[in-house]
C-alpha cells in the first residue's frame, strides 16, 4: 500500500468509528415520528426486529443503487467525442443480480415464517379468553365471569373497555355484527380484521402495566375514525378486583 493512501484510510476508519459511536445517541435524538412506538407485547420485539432487519437490508440496497445511479449520471454525462460502450449486456451479471435478490428474499421469507407461525398459528392453550364483537362504531368486550367460561350467564360485558392482566397470554375471539373492522393495538403490534360471519382468534401478552388504545384499522363507515377503545393492563390482583366490580355494577 502506498503512503499517500494512508491518511485517507485513517479518515475513513475514524469516520466509521465515529458513526458507530454516535449511532445509539443519534437514534435517541430522532424526532418521535422517526421511531416505532413503544412495544409492550411479548412477540412485538420479533416484529420490530424484522422491521429493523428489513430496514437495514433495504437501506443498504437503496444507498448502493442510488449512489451508483448518481455516480453513473455524473461520470458518464455528455461530453463531445465520448464514445459510449457498445454492449448488449452480460449473462453473468444477469445471473448474479437474479440470484442475489432471490436469496435475500427467500431468507427474509424464512425468517418471517417462524414469527408468523408463532403469532398467528400457534395460539396458546393456557390463556385468558376474551370475546370482542365489533360493530359500527364500538367494541363490545365480553369477559368470562366467576365460572371462568365464556358464553355463560355470568359473563361480564363492557363497551370499549379492554382490561387484562400483565404477564398472561390473552386470546381474543373476534366477531363483527355488521361490516369488516380491524382490531388494532399499535403498542402490542396486534392487528386482525373482524369479519362478519367469521370467527377469528388472536393472542397477545403484555409485558408491563399501563393504558393504551384500540384503534379500528379497516374503513367501516362514517364513524370509522372515532371507533376507539381503551386498553388497561393491570396486575392480576387489580384485574380481578376490576372484573368483580364491573360484574357487580352490571347486576345491580
Amino acid at each position: 500500500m502506498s503512503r499517500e493512501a494512508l491518511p485517507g484510510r485513517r479518515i475513513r476508519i475514524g469516520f466509521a468509528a465515529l458513526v458507530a459511536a454516535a449511532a445509539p445517541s443519534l437514534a435517541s435524538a430522532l424526532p418521535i415520528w422517526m421511531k416505532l412506538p413503544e412495544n409492550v407485547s411479548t412477540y412485538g420485539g420479533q416484529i420490530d426486529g424484522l422491521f429493523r432487519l428489513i430496514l437495514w437490508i433495504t437501506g443498504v440496497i437503496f444507498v448502493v443503487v442510488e449512489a451508483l445511479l448518481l455516480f453513473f449520471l455524473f461520470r458518464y454525462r455528455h461530453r463531445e467525442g465520448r464514445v459510449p460502450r457498445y454492449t448488449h449486456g452480460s449473462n453473468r451479471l444477469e445471473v448474479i443480480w437474479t440470484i442475489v435478490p432471490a436469496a435475500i428474499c427467500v431468507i427474509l421469507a424464512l425468517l418471517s415464517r417462524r414469527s408468523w407461525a408463532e403469532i398467528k398459528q400457534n395460539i396458546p392453550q393456557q390463556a385468558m379468553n376474551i370475546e370482542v364483537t365489533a360493530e359500527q362504531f364500538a367494541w363490545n368486550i365480553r369477559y368470562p365471569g366467576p365460572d371462568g367460561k365464556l358464553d355463560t350467564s355470568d359473563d361480564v360485558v363492557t363497551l370499549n373497555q379492554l382490561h387484562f392482566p400483565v404477564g398472561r397470554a390473552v386470546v381474543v375471539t373476534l366477531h363483527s355484527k355488521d361490516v369488516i373492522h380491524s382490531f388494532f393495538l399499535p403498542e402490542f403490534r396486534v392487528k386482525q380484521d373482524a369479519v362478519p360471519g367469521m370467527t377469528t382468534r388472536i393472542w397477545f401478552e403484555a409485558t408491563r402495566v399501563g393504558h393504551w388504545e384500540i384503534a379500528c384499522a379497516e374503513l367501516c363507515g362514517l364513524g370509522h375514525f372515532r371507533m376507539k377503545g381503551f386498553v388497561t393492563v393491570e396486575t392480576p390482583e387489580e384485574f380481578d378486583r376490576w372484573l368483580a366490580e364491573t360484574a357487580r355494577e352490571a347486576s345491580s
Partner: protein
Amino acid sequence: MAGGDRQGGKLMSSTIAVAHELPPGVHAAPTSFWRKYIFSLDHKVIGKQYLFYALFMLVIGGLLATLVRWQLAWPGRPIGFMGKLAPEGMPNGVMLPEFYNSLFTMHATIMIFFAIMPILIGAFGNFVVPLQIGARDMAFPTLNMLSFWTAVPGAILIIWSFFITGGAAQGGWTSYAPLSAVMPRGQTIWLISLLVLGISSLLTAVNFITTIINLRAPGMTFFRMPLTVWALFITAVLLLLALPVLSGAMIMLLFDRVLGTTFFLPRGLVVSGQALTNAGGGQPLLWQHLFWFFGHPEVYIMILPAMGITSEILPVFSRKPIFGYRAMAYSIMGIAGLGWIVWGHHMFQSGMNPILGTTFMISTMVIAVPSAIKTFNWLGTLWGGNITFTTPMLNALSFVSMFVIGGLSGIFMASTPVDIYIHDTYFIVGHIHYVLFGGSLFGAFAGLYFWYPKMFGRRMSETWGKVHWAITFVAFNCVFFPMHFLGMRGMQRRIYDYTQYAHLKGLQPLNQFMTISLFVLGTAQLILVLNFFLSMRRGERVGPNPWKSNTLEWQTSSPPPHENFSEIPVVYRGPYEYSAPERGADDHWPQNEPPTGRPATAHG
C-alpha cells in the same frame, strides 16, 4: 414476415371509394370535422383524445387529494368556498367525515382507473404501438373508437355521482363488502361506472393483442420489438384476463345491492341496529379474493407500461443499447406470470388462513426479483453511456430512482409479521404512491415530453420542462416520503381525524409539512399544463427525428400522416442499436435502414 402484405404496402389516403376493400387496420382518411377529431378511427387521434381525457381526470383526482390533505393538516378547519361548492359534504366549509370518505375513495378510483390507466395504455399505447411496430393503424379501428367513447360515459358517471343524494361512493377504492353493500346510492353509480369502463378496457386489450401479433412490419420479429411494445403487449394480456374477474365481482356486488342476492352477505348481519332481512349464506372475504385477484395484476398493468417507456428513453439519451434486452422482456413476462399468485398479500390480516399467508409471502418475495433485474439493467444501460439530461430523460431517471423506493418498501409488507403492524397504515399509502406517482406518473411525464414532438410536430419548452421536473421531484418526495414515518407511528389510513388517538399525538406538524408540499406539487403542475398547451402553438418545430432515435415512429414525419408511413417499413435490426462501432460518427441506426444504407420498404 409479419403481415406486411395484409396491410397494403402502398395504399394512399385518397382511395376513399374502395374503403370497404381495405385490409385490416387501414381506413380512408376522414374529411369531416366529426370523423376527423371526434369519432375518429385514427389511433393517433384516439391516443390524443385519451391524453386529454386522462390529463383532465388527473387534475380532478389531484384536487380531491388536496382536500383530503387539507383535512389531515388542519382537521376541521373550514374552507370558505367549499361551503358553497359542496354544501352537503362541507357545510360552511367544514368537512364531514362521510365526505372525507368520498374524497379519498374517489381520489383513488379516478387516479387509478381514469388517469393512470388511460394515460399509459389509452394515450401512449394507442399512439405509439402501431407506429413502433410499423402498422398503419390498430387492427380494429372502429373498436378502438368504441373503446374511447365507452370510457367517456364512465367518467361522466363517476363525476356525476358527487352530485346525487348521499354523495359519491365512500367505501374506499377497494370497496370491501359488506360495507360496500350497505352504503348509499353513490356506490351503485361507482359500480356501474367501473363496469362501463371495464368494457372499454377489454376492447382496448383485445385490440392491442391482435395488433401486436398480426400487424408487425416485415422483419419486426417479437425480439426486435421496442420494450414499450413488449410492456403494452403483456399489459393487454393482463387486462384481458384480470378485468373480467373484477367485472364479475362487481356484478355480484351490484346484485347484492339492487336485486337482494347475498353473495357477500353472511347470516345475521345487523347494520345500525336493524337486521338485514336478505342477508345469509354469503362470504365477505370472497369479494377480497376476487378484487385482489384482479387488483394485483392491476398494479402491474399500471407500472409495466411506465417501465416500457423508461426502457425506451434511457438508451436514447445514453446513446447505447439497452442492457440485457432479453432479460428485460423476460422479466416483464415473469412479473406478469407471478402477478397471478400474489394477491393474498393484501389479505394477510383479513382472517384468511395464516398458512395461506405464508405461501403468499413466499410468492410475493419472489416477485421482487424481476423488478430488481429491471432496475439493475437500467443501471447497466447508463453505465458507460454518453448521457444528456433532456426532460424525458430526467423524468425517466426519476422513475428509476423512485421506483426503487416503492419496490423496496414493498418488502416490508411482504413479510407477514411486519405486515401485522403496518397493514392499513400510511406505510402502505406511502408505498403505493411511490409506485404510482414515483413510478407510473413519472413514466407518463417522461413519455409525454418524449413523444410530444411526434404527436404535435413541436417540442415542449425544455427550460420550463426542467423547472417542472425539478419542483415536482422535490415536492413529490416531501409529500410522500413522510408517509412511511406516519405508518411507522401506526397512523391508520382512511381516517378523518387522527388527532383523536393517543398514539398519533405529535404528528400534526409533519402532516402540515406534507400538505404544504402538496400545494407546491400541485402548483408546479400548472407549469406542465401551460407548457403542454402553449407549445402546441409556440413550441419549436421539429423534424421527423428530434432525439435521433432508432425506433420506427421516428422514421416518419412529425406528426405522422394519416396512414403513418408513406410505405410500410422493413425492419433489419433491434430497436436500441446506438453507437454501433461500424456506424462510425453516426450514433444511431434506424431499425428500417437496410444494411446497404438505403431505406427500403416492403415493396420497394
